[in-house]
């Protein structure tokens, strides 16, 4: 398989993952804005920060009001990380690697892009937002479904999954990075209504509000939420889960190619580190420091994968 194609697949799935996560962030923020208009601006600011586009946003806007934020995150051409731009780039990558995809996967991406382009042609009306969110969820699910249902589970598949999980680990970690202070046990108004809303927003941002409730019986506890997002073995967006998926997919490349690369050691080391840690260790050493360190390791791992599999000349 061509290095350029591995690169295109990897980034295609990173972009799709990020588009989906950005949409989820907007949805969580919107809900917050609807229910608690007082703190809406602050909430939108942290969401823009989580999405990694604070700088770009401030270049065109002065304040974090609901309508401009939603527009910027969903469809703005000024925002290289808007849902529409990401989908457009994912589709461009899909065209680039067209021969590595089944017709079904390609058509799912192409249709997703056509649907979103139509839905996001004009500024988003608040009343249309739920329908747009549903469409994004459905289109992303379609791509994922076709990937699982029609693609050979070979190296092509591994690169697609690596892209997904490197991006997902990054996105979950960035959410924690922006929100870590509401999860600190030291915050004394534990159980206040404000905290409850904040925690719920965090959980909603990773579509995990229901599964958290399922596991923890509805008692919101900041350290349990942090544990859930960082170390849970079953939660598909936890840092640990993403690390395991990365290790597994790299292992399948190792089997396929009979080649062990530096990225294998890096990934396994990262996984082992999380394995050793408890959430109390993490709090003791500093949640913020832990997250910062995780983000930089995850970035380095991503770059190592690109080098080891000759993505670029």
């Amino acid at each position, binding site marked *: *398989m*061509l*290095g*350029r*194609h*591995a690169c295109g697949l990897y980034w295609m799935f990173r972009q799709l993952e990020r588009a989906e996560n950005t949409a989820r962030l907007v949805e969580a923020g919107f809900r917050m804005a609807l229910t608690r208009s007082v703190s809406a601006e602050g909430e939108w600011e942290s969401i823009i920060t989580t999405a990694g586009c604070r700088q770009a946003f401030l270049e065109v806007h002065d304040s974090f009001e609901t309508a401009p934020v939603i527009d910027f995150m969903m469809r703005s051409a000024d925002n290289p990380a808007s849902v529409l731009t990401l989908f*457009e780039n994912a*589709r*461009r990558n899909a*065209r*680039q690697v*067209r*021969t590595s995809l089944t*017709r079904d996967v*390609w*058509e799912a991406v*192409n*249709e997703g892009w*056509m649907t979103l*382009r139509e839905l996001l042609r004009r500024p988003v009306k608040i009343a249309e937002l739920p329908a747009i969110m549903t469409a994004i969820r459905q289109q992303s699910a379609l791509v994922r479904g076709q990937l699982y249902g029609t693609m050979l589970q070979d*190296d092509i598949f591994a690169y697609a999954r690596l892209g997904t999980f490197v991006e997902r680990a990054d996105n979950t970690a960035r959410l924690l990075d922006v929100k870590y202070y509401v999860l600190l046990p030291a915050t004394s108004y534990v159980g206040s209504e404000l905290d409850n809303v904040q925690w719920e927003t965090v959980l909603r941002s990773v579509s995990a509000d229901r599964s958290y409730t399922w596991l923890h019986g509805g008692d919101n506890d900041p350290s349990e939420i942090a544990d859930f997002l960082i170390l849970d073995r079953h939660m598909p967006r936890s840092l640990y889960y993403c690390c395991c998926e990365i290790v597994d997919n790299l292992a399948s490349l190792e089997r396929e*190619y009979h*080649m062990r690369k530096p990225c294998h050691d890096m990934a396994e080391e990262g996984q082992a580190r999380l394995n050793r840690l408890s959430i109390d260790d993490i709090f003791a050493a500093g949640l913020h420091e832990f997250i910062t360190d995780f983000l930089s390791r995850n970035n380095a791992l991503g770059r190592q994968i690109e080098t080891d*599999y*000759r993505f670029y*000349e």
Partner: protein
Amino acid sequence: MHDEAGAPREPYEEYTRWLSDYTPAELARKSREAETFFRRTGITFNVYGARDADERLIPFDIVPRVISAREWARLERGIEQRVRAINAFLHDIYHKQEIIKAGRLPLNLIANNDAFLAKMIGVSPPGGVYTHIVGTDLVRTGPNDFYVLEDNARTPSGVSYMIENRETMLRMFPELFSRVPVQSVGDYPVNLRRALARSAPPASRGARPVIAVLTPGIHNSAYFEHAFLADQMGAALVEGHDLRVVDGRIAMRTTQGFTPIDVLYRRVDDDYLDPLNFRADSVLGVPGIMDVYRAGGITIANAPGTGVADDKAIYSYMPEIIEFYTGKPPILKNVPTWRCAEADALKYVLEHLDELVVKEVHGSGGYGMLVGPAASKKEIAAFRKKLEAKPANYIAQPTLALSTVPVLTKSGLSPRHVDLRPFVLVSPDRINITPGGLTRVAMKKGSLVVNSSQGGGTKDTWILED
């Protein structure tokens, strides 16, 4: 489609009976369905300099063009004869040049031809094949009269439309194919793969030669086709920067290192193929590929330098070329052609500009041509100046009374002019012509220009079973 009395011609009979079951509204709906299908599949072409949003669809007409088995058999013989002659001609031109020594072709036609590559002199391509893929453009002027318009011997495109148009028809009108026995075009990719594999170079190792399709990239107007063919053949779809010379072979950068390629089906023009040997500013090619090629390290399909055979000035000599190499008169007719480089011819052309079609010798895509009968006095006057300034740059042909076939328009079925491009595959041991081809349609009433870059459309082409 209809004879002079207005009754459907025989190959169309069953089809016409079937068509009468549909109301105009149903046909219009089917037509929209086809468009959705093309969009979703991504069968689009880029417009240069435009954004992704400006990917266009080539208009697809749902009324197929039908050709009988008997008509096809004659076309097949004629095309095969022509393609054999072209390959013999190319070999001769790059070796002993006997046709020139015999006085059948003027030397200056070769010596002053930009498409003639000196780097190919004395080079014999693997298996002796120059043109692995040819798309012969034909037009029909009467029940048994086909003319060859052009021999596309460089990198003919459009074959993906031949296949996808059929796919679309099968999907939309499955019942029709059980009523009318149509020959399949689906084997083209397998036959292409075979033709390329059979032409593997001496350096090729292993039972399955490694084949790659070289594309200029996603912004090329034919990118869909490049990806489609690579996908259908199970070949790698490479760009110039994926390739480099490694140990005397052309190798592609894979996730596990560099892997040598045996056969490169390139969709990049000669000029851009090798910045070391041709245009130095090209980023689409591979530095040094010509040297590897000359040493037998890779097969390039089509071979560099084949353009000298489909040049419009050479075209006018095709009847002589065919006779010289096959010893028989051509089965398919050439359109009579005036070479404006010749004084007598130029005089005639200048006197009859309003009746003739005048084309640039090296032009393509329907650009830079004058269609006399359709042009205004002003256009003719402007063209006259260009022609007088550089006569050798032009050839002229009579406007043929092209046959028409029906297309579906807003006001029902209406006749439009068409041409036909069958696709020919040449391997060292055989010539294979897919029973079908690309029918291009001039979508404007009365227009003779069928090129997609100028709004032309396509339709499915049916060759009936015997």
